[in-house]
């Protein structure tokens, strides 16, 4: 075997692998198109296969050559529409391309591999068609696969030309069809004449010059296999160098019967060219396989052409055939290309050829040893390097002469150039993610086929670029995820159809840039992941406890899949799958500094999101300071920075169990103190002395229970009394020095996320964001899991890079435990989605130690802490001096039959605003705000001032009706409020849609109290029917948003779209009016949003709208 020098082989391999990648996807596209053949596409594959073959021939890689050759034959058939690219055909081609790839991976031994089976398969495909094809076109080879392929194979035609092949597979000439065909149309015959210098000329005493002159007189020489000088310059004894076999392509009016008069040679060495560009003997027998090896005719230059290893270009009609004897040509698969380098395999090399074979040297051909970089980029690098040198000179000079200004300028320039240089070098490493994506169509197709599923893969963002190392490392995890999506995500077609989905499943693979990171999304519209089943499995494996599972949100359950040990070798397909090796995927991504997160809805599909850094070497980091040392937190993990002013710490930092949490936009964020986790003393800067001092604060907030026995809300609930005592003690302790109210003691929190988990890292100080270079830590520090490495800061000191995932683990904050803290919210959220019930933000407090109360948070103005002694009893009413006025106070036991207010020194005042006035409710702690979905029982414990009861934190909780209480205490407050809108002496009728009977009764009651007539509906559909029945009566609609059958949005839309009702004002009642909801509501025409249980505002709004309606 002839192996070219390493470099050539390397180049060939790189090119070929690129081609192969294209081939695969193009084949899939061809398959998809089916009988509707896209010529361009087929040609592209054809050319790619051809290039590979050409190179292989040149390199002496016979196996590769043979294989590509067979592929080429099939492709040729497809192109000429003699074969329909069914998936069976494509299958064979694909598997052939796989074999090719494996041959190339081990190129030095590729010739030793046994590929006969593969070839046989290809031939079978070809032969399967050959029978029928032969009938249509007599030119098809007489299904003699042993010779036909060989012959064709050795003659790759340059672009836009057709190879004419002599019997025995020797290369003839290459012709350009547009040169030949017009002549034929003129009635001329075109012949290929083979003359042997010795036999036909010298033996018969003829000269070449004479022959050529004769030919010139009777026709036109279209081409020959040597360089033909102008006729008048040919010397008498001239013979072309390097060959003794002369080929002429000759167009003449002489008919086949007469042509040999001219040459007087063996008739079997003259061939006529048919108008299909095939050679026939003079008797009209076909001599060679069909000339469908045409590379695209008259095609524009494509990359495939440039990369074709054969130096043949469009005018390469001159071919030297280095043929020793005919027999050799027949038996050996000639490693010839259109170039002059072609030579039979084991023939010694004529010395003059420059790029000839060296003996093969064993060397490693890893595919990643070289990289293609655009020349312009290299130029840019060179320019930058030049500039750097100049700036250095400048700097040296300035330094030598003590010119500080000059040094500064040079320094700035170097700064600039360094950034540019860094960017440019980064670019050289950037590769498009398409390199990875492109293999997925095949993966998906094959897997879907074997599983009997129909899957469509949609790729987006192939052009997104990532660092080479990341591209290489991400292939496996992504493949895994895509396979999973097909295997476990997408259901079989019949199941899909039954579920009302299209039988063809869709998988989206999308890459895009965001915030300096690359995001990859893999989404499918399959069956989704059942969190319950995963949780059950995790429980079974003992990875989580039952309590933990109870606390988990659906999302967290789904993310259990990433738990190490969750998915071992054992398949979990029986539990909706998606688990095999997911922890490995996560580990791999973690190594890359990537994040992964799953979102799924059973029956709807799943979305897996991956975030990756652009590069690994240089990463942007947030610098923080704790205990006098700086630490770097990779920006990838950074969500946001939070600074809680000293005077808000008390209000915003809360404790659940023994964990501190901060309320951030409605979510509880677990807090970890960096100093605590890594065991150092936190510091703060004393504002008076400017010195750094140890910070001895033990807790971030005040409400703190040292002896909290454990996590879990049940425990926490049992613990209330303890907490209360503790709070009391601590409040006392604090009286002396209010150090925490200084600005310097503001709390700095870095909100970080690691995949599904998000937490706040409490640090001493926040510094800048910097780009850092990651350096590894020594072996003695390998066991310190909290660090991802170290970096050198601008001042030369070393800073450690924090590994936020491990820190969380060290702090005992696994994703699962995390959920314990966010449990209430998560649970509520889950149920809200599931049962379509309403979430309610409640403030939970106590009046006596034993009873727990709740009030809608939306009605609470603020909470004050007071001393019992501050309360004044004036005029039979309790008040407290507050902001220069008197705040009336009451306790629940004044109105409702509940236990009396606890006799404590420290009390809380919950301030409500009712009827435009502030009123304070006396209560005791602990207070907590919760967003919960609760089933409110409006009957069992109903009494004046108590609207109902619910179970919160496993405890019966009474919901107070603040309006009723205030009304009972101060009926006069409401007098001026009573504005009943009447139309023609009759109260207006309001249609009220609400699915929860509790709220329905509540709101209905308050509206009826006001004097309105109320029609109630349990959902949007009933409301709509009622509206139609009572079209003339209804003056206003109040609706809930979340309702079964028809939600509030739809109802409003219907109302607003109907000409009959479009004038009706619609007021939406919500528990939480998110911006999105409001926007959506506005879109469909909701006139106003009111919060449930804020009767006052609701009634005001109703009044308002009715007035407007009347005025209009």
């Amino acid at each position: 075997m002839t192996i070219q020098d390493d470099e050539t082989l390397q180049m060939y391999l790189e090119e070929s692998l690129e081609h192969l990648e294209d081939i695969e996807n193009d084949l899939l596209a061809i398959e998809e198109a089916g009988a509707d053949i896209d010529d361009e596409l087929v040609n592209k594959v054809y050319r790619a296969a051809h290039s590979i073959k050409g190179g292989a021939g040149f390199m002496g890689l016979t196996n590769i050559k043979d294989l590509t050759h067979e592929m080429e034959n099939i492709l040729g058939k497809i192109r000429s529409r003699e074969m329909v690219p069914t998936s069976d055909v494509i299958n064979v081609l694909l598997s052939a391309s796989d074999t090719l790839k494996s041959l190339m991976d081990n190129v030095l031994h590729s010739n030793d591999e046994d590929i006969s089976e593969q070839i046989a398969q290809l031939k079978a495909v070809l032969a399967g068609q050959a029978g029928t094809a032969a009938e249509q076109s007599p030119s098809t080879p007489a299904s003699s696969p042993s010779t036909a392929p060989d012959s064709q194979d050795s003659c790759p035609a340059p672009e836009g030309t057709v190879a004419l092949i002599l019997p025995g597979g020797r290369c003839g000439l290459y012709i350009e069809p547009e040169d030949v065909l017009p002549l034929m149309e003129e009635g001329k015959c075109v012949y290929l004449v083979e003359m042997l210098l010795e036999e036909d000329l010298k033996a018969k005493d003829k000269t070449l010059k004479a022959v050529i002159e004769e030919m010139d007189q009777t026709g036109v020489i279209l081409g020959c296999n040597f360089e033909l000088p102008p006729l008048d310059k040919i010397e008498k004894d001239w013979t072309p160098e390097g060959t003794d076999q002369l080929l002429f392509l000759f167009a003449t009016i002489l008919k086949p019967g007469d042509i040999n008069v001219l040459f007087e040679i063996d008739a079997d060495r003259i061939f006529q060219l048919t108008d299909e560009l095939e050679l026939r003997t003079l008797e009209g027998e076909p001599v060679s396989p069909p000339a469908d090896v045409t590379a695209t005719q008259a095609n524009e230059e494509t990359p495939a052409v440039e990369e074709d290893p054969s130096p043949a270009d469009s005018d390469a009609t001159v071919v030297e055939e280095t043929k020793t004897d005919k027999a050799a040509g027949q038996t050996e698969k000639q490693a010839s290309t259109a170039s002059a380098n072609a030579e039979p395999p084991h023939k010694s090399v004529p010395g003059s050829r420059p790029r000839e074979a060296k003996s093969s040297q064993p060397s490693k051909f890893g595919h990643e040893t070289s990289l293609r970089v655009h020349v312009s980029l290299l130029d840019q690098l060179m320019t930058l390097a030049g500039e750097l040198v100049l700036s250095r000179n400048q700097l040296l000079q300035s330094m030598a002469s003590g010119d500080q200004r000059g040094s500064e300028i040079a320094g700035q320039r170097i700064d600039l150039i360094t950034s540019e240089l860094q960017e440019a070098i980064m670019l050289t490493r950037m590769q498009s993610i398409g390199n990875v994506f492109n293999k997925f169509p095949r993966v998906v197709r094959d897997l879907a086929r074997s599983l009997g599923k129909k899957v469509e893969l949609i790729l987006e963002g192939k052009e997104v670029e990532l660092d080479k190392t990341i591209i290489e490392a991400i292939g496996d995890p992504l493949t895994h995820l895509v396979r999973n999506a097909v295997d476990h995500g997408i259901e079989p077609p019949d199941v899909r159809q039954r579920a009302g989905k299209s039988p063809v499943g869709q998988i989206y693979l999308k890459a895009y840039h965001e915030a300096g990171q690359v995001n990859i999304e893999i989404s499918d519209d399959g069956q989704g992941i059942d969190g319950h089943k995963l949780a059950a499995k995790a429980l079974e494996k003992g990875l989580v406890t039952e309590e933990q599972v109870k606390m988990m949100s659906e999302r967290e359950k789904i993310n259990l899949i990433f738990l190490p040990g969750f998915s071992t070798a054992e398949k979990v397909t029986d539990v909706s799958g998606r688990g095999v090796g997911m922890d490995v995927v996560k580990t791999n991504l973690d190594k890359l500094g990537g994040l992964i997160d799953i979102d799924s809805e059973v029956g709807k599909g799943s979305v897996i999101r991956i975030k990756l850094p652009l590069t690994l070497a240089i990463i942007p980091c947030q610098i923080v300071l704790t205990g006098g040392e700086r630490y770097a937190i990779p920006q990838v993990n950074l969500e946001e920075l939070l600074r809680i002013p000293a005077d808000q710490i008390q209000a915003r930092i809360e404790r659940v169990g023994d964990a501190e949490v901060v309320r951030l936009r409605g979510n509880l964020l677990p807090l970890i103190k960096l100093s605590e986790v890594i065991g150092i003393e936190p510091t703060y800067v004393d504002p008076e002395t400017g010195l750094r001092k140890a910070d001895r604060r033990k807790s971030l907030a005040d409400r703190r229970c040292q002896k909290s026995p454990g996590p879990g809300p049940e425990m926490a609930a049992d613990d209330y009394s303890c907490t209360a005592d503790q709070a009391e003690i601590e409040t006392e302790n604090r009286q002396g020095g209010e150090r925490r109210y200084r600005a310097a003691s503001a709390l700095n929190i870095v909100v970080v996320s690691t995949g599904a988990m998000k937490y706040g890292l409490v640090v001493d100080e926040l510094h800048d964001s910097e780009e850092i270079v990651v350096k590894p830590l020594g072996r003695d520090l390998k066991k310190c899991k909290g660090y991802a490495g170290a970096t050198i800061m601008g001042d030369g000191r070393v800073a450690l890079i924090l590994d936020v995932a491990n820190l969380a683990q060290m702090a005992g904050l696994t994703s699962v435990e995390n959920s314990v803290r966010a449990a209430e919210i998560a649970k509520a959220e889950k149920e809200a989605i599931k049962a379509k019930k309403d979430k309610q933000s409640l403030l939970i407090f106590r009046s006596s130690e034993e009873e727990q109360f709740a009030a809608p948070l939306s009605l609470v103005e603020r909470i004050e802490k007071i001393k019992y002694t501050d309360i004044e009893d004036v005029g039979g009413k309790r008040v407290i001096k507050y902001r220069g006025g008197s705040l009336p106070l009451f306790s629940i036991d004044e109105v409702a039959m509940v236990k009396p207010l606890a006799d404590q020194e420290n009390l809380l005042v919950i301030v409500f605003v009712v009827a435009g006035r502030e009123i304070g409710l006396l209560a005791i702690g602990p207070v907590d705000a919760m967003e919960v979905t609760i089933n409110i029982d409006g009957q069992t414990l109903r009494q004046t001032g108590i609207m109902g009861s619910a179970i919160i934190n496993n405890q019966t909780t009474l919901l107070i009706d603040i309006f009723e209480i205030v009304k009972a205490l101060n009926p006069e407050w409401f007098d001026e409020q009573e504005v009943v809108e009447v139309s023609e002496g009759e109260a207006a009728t309001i249609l009220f849609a609400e699915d929860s009977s509790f709220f329905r009764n509540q709101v209905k009651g308050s509206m009826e109290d006001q004097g309105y007539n109320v029609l109630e509906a349990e959902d949007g559909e009933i409301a709509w029917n009622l509206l139609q029945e009572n079209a003339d009566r209804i003056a206003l609609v109040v609706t809930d948003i979340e309702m079964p059958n028809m939600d509030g949005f739809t109802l409003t839309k219907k109302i607003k779209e109907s000409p009959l009702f479009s004038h009706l004002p619609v007021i939406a009642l919500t528990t939480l009016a998110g911006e999105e909801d409001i926007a959506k509501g506005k879109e469909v025409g909701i006139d106003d949003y009111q919060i449930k249980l804020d009767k006052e505002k609701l009634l005001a709004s109703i009044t308002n709208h009715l007035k407007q309606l009347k005025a209009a």
Partner: protein
Amino acid sequence: MDTTSSINTPESGMVELATFYVGQALCGMDILKVQEINKLMEMTTVPQAPNYVMGILNLRGQIVTIIDLGKKLGLATTEMSDTSRNIIVNSKGEYIGLHVSKISDVVEADWSKVEPPPANIGGVQGTYFRGVFKTKQSLIGILDTEKVLLEEN
């Protein structure tokens, strides 16, 4: 004697020892193992590191772990002082600094005159010494650096 530390120079012929004090003890190591000796003390402490790790520092762009040799040998903590130095050694492709109390002379020693470590040092320390070399004034304990720097399990 020690046969496991094959990376060490053969124990024959002459050897130049860089000697230094760890606390009061005079120790020596093959001078060819020493990359450099410096007095960089701008260390960054690494919380949760093993107790013998003093910190890490930036040695011309490389992160070097500084080890308190005294502590590592099971002796007293080496205090930072005017005389204390870091001996930077290259071990398995990684730079590690040994913090010592004081640097002393370079002593030429003949392996044939090196005696095995006395039986009574034994224990943890004993394993770190390759032998003892006697000069006119003092005894030099010859450290087996590879063993000292071996990762602790």
